[in-house]
């Protein structure tokens, strides 16, 4: 305990704090990029998964298989797989890029189910009305289904992204200079592990807690009919 108190002034220097802030920023950036790109790709995956026709069966199966497989593999294994796979192709890729790709691959698998749940929550009769008026499948999806699926998709999607902030800690293993990596560095420099990792934990908390509260707030707002109408008016401007 005395050791920790003795270390405090050396630990909480401006330099260290700036370093921590930077690495926290990197953590957030990775999460945001990976989850956004993954979310977009997940839409494509879910759309492809619904392609009708017997000829599309292999495509549909591949889409299903992707989700079922990557949801069951630990993130650290995905990270390693992406790392070593990319390294056989090129040596130029930055660790940050590799991390974002790994996050993407993982996020696609998890958000695909969220998106599919949202799409399936829209009454089939809406789709029938559109089909009977000769709407193409794409147009139906974009103009009728997605606007109605949105309030069901966004809250769990945000919750997923926020919880992913914690999972990015694993990319410290391949040397990305994010928050956990800095923590290990500081510990190696001799600072007490209780002090270091306690502080790092607190940093994650500062990122995760407010955002998850925001997510819950959005969920409540999007859930009520009044909320949906104001969401609509925001959308239609």
């Amino acid at each position, binding site marked *: 305990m005395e050791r920790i108190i003795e270390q405090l002034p050396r630990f909480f220097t401006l330099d260290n704090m700036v370093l921590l802030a930077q690495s926290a920023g990197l953590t957030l950036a990775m999460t945001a990029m990976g989850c956004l790109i993954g979310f977009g790709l997940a839409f494509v995956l879910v759309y492809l998964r619904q392609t009708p026709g017997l000829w599309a069966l292999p495509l549909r199966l591949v889409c299903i298989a992707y989700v079922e497989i990557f949801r069951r593999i630990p993130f650290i294994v995905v990270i390693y797989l992406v790392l070593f796979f990319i390294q056989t192709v090129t040596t130029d890729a930055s660790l940050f890029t590799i991390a974002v790709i790994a996050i993407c691959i993982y996020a696609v698998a998890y958000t695909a189910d969220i998106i599919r749940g949202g799409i399936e929550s829209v009454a089939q009769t809406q789709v029938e009305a*559109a089909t009977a*008026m000769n709407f193409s499948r794409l147009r139906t999806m974009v*103009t009728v289904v997605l606007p*109605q699926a949105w309030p069901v998709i966004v809250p769990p999607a945000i919750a997923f992204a926020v919880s992913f902030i914690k999972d990015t800690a694993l990319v410290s293993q391949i040397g990305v200079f994010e928050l956990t990596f800095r923590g290990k560095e500081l510990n190696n420099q001799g600072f007490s592990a209780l002090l270091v990792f306690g502080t790092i934990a607190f940093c994650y908390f500062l990122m995760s807690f407010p955002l998850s509260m925001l997510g819950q707030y959005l969920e409540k707002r999007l859930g009520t009919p009044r909320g949906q109408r104001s969401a609509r008016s925001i959308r239609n401007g």
Partner: protein
Amino acid sequence: MAHLAVSDLHARYGTVDVLKGVSFSMKKGEVIGLVGPSGSGKSTVLRTLVGLTPASAGTVTINETVIDFSNAASVRLARDQMAIVFQQYNLFQNMSVLHNVTVAPTKIKKWPEAQVRQEAEKLLAMVGLADKLAAYPDQLSGGQQQRVAIARALALQPEILLLDEVTSALDPELVNEVLDTIRRLAGEGISMILVSHEMAFIREVADKVIFMDEGEVVEEAPPETMFDAPTTDRARDFFGKILRH
């Protein structure tokens, strides 16, 4: 020449045969009332015509053009000429009343926007909803939504209007406003196939009544004959039960 000719139409849900050879024809401007017990396949006939339920056999001819339901382009042609109004109205919940009516003519038929908008406003005024253009479906009553649905179907300027039990989901006091709208359309000479349980109404507006049971057309006759003196036993049975009050 027949406007619409349905010949030996078959349809199945999974392993169940829902339509077992339905045939009838329709002249331009005719109003056909399609009646029968639940499960007789009346709604399925309408759904098959717009390609929502796949037809397993039979042909449908509109204005001399034969529709091939296994061909996507052919089905699109059928949908182009027939518009359906559903029992549950099925308005697009994320669009305003006006948008619901204008979206298909502008985006699918590619008609000029200003014109479509004008037409839409006229149609909505005709069904008595001129003041609800900016409202959303969840703000309207069932009867109002159904009238919007009718306006939406008419905005497509179809050859034939298909009405699938459009008053069955409505509270009794809202039924009449919808029937009034349909009555007016019938008066204007629009070709319609009307699936309904409102026997008095069908008797009033229909030129021909088709009675279906268990996926087949059992009898076809003008309203007076059908309701007062049906020739087949099944029809007599059905109307006897229904028309006692």
